[in-house]
C-alpha cells in the first residue's frame, strides 16, 4: 500500500463494467462507460454534478439495471444473472447520499437494518442480541453510541450520515460503496472515518468505491481516481497523476468556479 500502483490491469479486478449505458427518463446518463474496479483498493469517483456518479453507484449495487452493456463480478459472473446478483448483494454494502434512513426508527434500529438479510421477515422475535451488540459496536465506531436510542429524525445531518455509514459497516462487506459518505461530516471525523476505510482495505482486504466531491480528500484516500465527464471515464489513474490538466479534463471550465478542484490541486 502507498506505493504508486501500476495500471489497473495489473491489480486483481473485482468488478468489470463494459460499455454501460443508463437512461434516466429521456436522458442518457452513462454513455458506454467501461471501468474495472480493483480488489483491495479504494477507488474514488469524481466528476461534475449530474455527470452520473450516483447512477454509477446504483449500477454497482444492482439497483439500476443498465439498458446496454454488462457488469460482471469477478469469480461470480454477470450481474444480470439473479443468482450472481443475490450473492453480489450479500457481500456489498452501500452508504447512500440521502442516508436512506427510516425517520421513525432509532439509530440502533436503522443500523440493524444493515443486517436485515439475517433475520426472517416474518419472525415475531426481536433482533437477536448478537446483532444488536454488533449494531451498537458500529455506532460506537462512528462516534454515535450516545445517540443509540434517538429517533433518526431527531439527528443532525452529520449524525444521520454517520448512522448510514454504520449501517453499511455493520455488514462486514467485501465491497463497500459510498455515495458522498462524508458530505455532512466535519473534517476531523472525515479524516478518522477515511482512515477506518483505509485500514479496512489494508486489513480485511475489502474493496471500496467512493464518490467524493472534495478533491483533497479524494487524493488522500484514493488508490486510484476515476474521473467522469459526459457519461464516460475521462480520467483513470493513481491520485499522483490527477494533476491540473487531468482535472480540467474532468471538470469543464464553468464547473471550476463552484467546485474549485483546481485551487486544491497544488501538491
Amino acid at each position: 500500500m502507498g506505493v504508486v500502483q501500476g495500471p489497473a490491469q495489473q491489480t486483481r479486478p473485482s468488478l468489470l463494467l463494459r460499455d454501460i449505458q443508463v437512461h434516466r427518463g429521456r436522458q442518457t446518463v452513462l454513455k458506454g462507460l467501461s471501468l474495472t474496479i480493483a480488489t483491495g483498493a479504494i477507488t474514488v469517483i469524481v466528476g461534475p454534478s449530474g455527470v452520473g456518479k450516483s447512477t454509477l453507484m446504483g449500477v454497482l449495487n444492482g439497483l439500476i439495471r443498465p439498458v446496454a452493456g454488462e457488469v460482471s463480478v469477478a469469480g461470480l459472473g454477470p450481474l444480470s444473472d439473479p443468482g450472481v446478483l443475490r450473492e453480489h448483494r450479500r457481500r456489498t454494502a452501500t452508504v447512500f447520499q440521502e442516508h436512506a434512513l427510516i425517520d421513525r426508527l432509532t439509530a440502533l434500529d436503522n443500523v440493524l437494518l444493515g443486517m436485515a438479510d439475517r433475520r426472517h421477515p416474518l419472525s415475531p422475535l426481536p433482533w437477536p442480541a448478537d446483532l444488536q451488540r454488533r449494531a451498537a459496536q458500529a455506532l460506537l465506531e462512528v462516534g454515535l453510541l450516545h445517540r443509540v436510542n434517538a429517533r433518526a429524525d431527531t439527528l443532525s445531518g452529520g449524525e444521520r450520515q454517520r448512522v448510514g455509514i454504520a449501517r453499511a459497516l455493520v455488514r462486514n462487506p467485501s465491497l463497500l460503496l459510498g455515495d458522498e459518505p462524508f458530505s455532512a461530516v466535519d473534517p476531523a471525523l472525515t479524516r478518522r472515518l477515511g482512515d477506518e476505510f483505509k485500514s479496512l482495505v489494508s486489513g480485511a482486504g475489502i474493496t471500496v468505491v467512493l464518490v467524493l466531491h472534495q478533491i483533497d480528500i479524494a487524493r488522500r484516500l484514493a488508490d486510484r481516481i476515476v474521473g467522469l465527464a459526459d457519461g464516460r471515464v475521462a480520467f483513470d489513474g493513481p491520485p499522483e497523476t490527477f494533476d491540473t490538466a487531468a482535472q480540467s479534463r474532468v471538470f469543464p471550465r464553468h464547473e471550476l468556479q463552484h467546485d474549485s478542484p483546481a485551487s486544491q490541486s497544488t501538491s
Partner: protein
Amino acid sequence: MTGVITPHAAPATATRVAVEGVLAASRHRHRRRLVQTTFGLIAVLFACGYAGVLDPARYADAIPTILQLLTDAMPPDFSRWRDWGRPLLETLSMSVAGTALGLALALPLGALAARNIAPNWIGSPVRLLLNTCRSIPTLVWGILYVAAVGFGPLPGVLALASHSIGMLGKFCAEILEHVDPAPGDALRSQGVSRLGVLRFSVWPQILPRLMDVAVYRWEHNLRAATTVGVVGAGGLGLEIITAFHLFEYREALALILVLLGLVSLINLAGAFVRGRLINAGMRE
C-alpha cells in the same frame, strides 16, 4: 443564457411594466375572489331557504317544546344503572370489533388502491369500491345487516366495519403512497427480499400512522355504534331509543350522559395513544 434580466441592466421602463403587471394580476385575483364569494353566499342562502331554515313560523314552538322536554328529563334517572352494563359492553365491543374488522379488510384493499403499488386498472375499481363503502351511511348498512343476520351486536359490527373500510382503505392507500422508497432501496441493494422490504422498511413506516387513524376511527365508531343500536343492533343506542319510546325521558338523559362520559373517556385515551405514537420513538 439569454433572457436573464439583471437588476442593474434592466431599463427603468421595463421594471415599471413588470411591477404594473404584478399589480394587475393581484387586482384580477381579488375580483375573482369577490365573484366566487358572492356565488358561494347565494348558494348557501338558497340551500337554507329550500330547507326551511329561514321560515320563522317553524321556530314558534321550538324553544318551549325543548324546554318542556328538558324539564321532563330532569333530574336524570340512574336507578336502573345495574342493567346498563351489558348494553354498555355491547356498544364498546361493537366499536372495537367493527374497527378491527374494517382495518383488517382495509389494509389489502388500501394496498390495491395505492397508486404506487397496483396498476390503475386494479386501483380504479378498488377506489370506487372504497368510495361506495364510505358513501353508504352506517345506519343503512345496519338495516341491511339486521335483515341479513338478525338483531344484536353482530349486525352492528358488520355495519361499522363496512363503513370503516371505505375511510380506512382510503387512508391506507394514502399512507402507502407516502412511504419513502429510499430505505427500501437500501435494503434491496443488500439483497433483502420483497417480503423483507415490506417488513423492515414499509411496515415500520406505516405502522404508527395506521394506528393513528385506527384509534381515530375507533372513537368515531363508538359514537356510530350507538346510532346503529337504534335500528336494532343492540347496545346503548337501543336502550336510549327504548327509553324515548316509553316516554322515560329522565332515564334517556341518564343514558345519554353515560354515553357522553364513555365517549369523552375514549377520546382522552385515544389522544394519549396518538400523542405517544407521533412523538415517542418506536423501538422494536
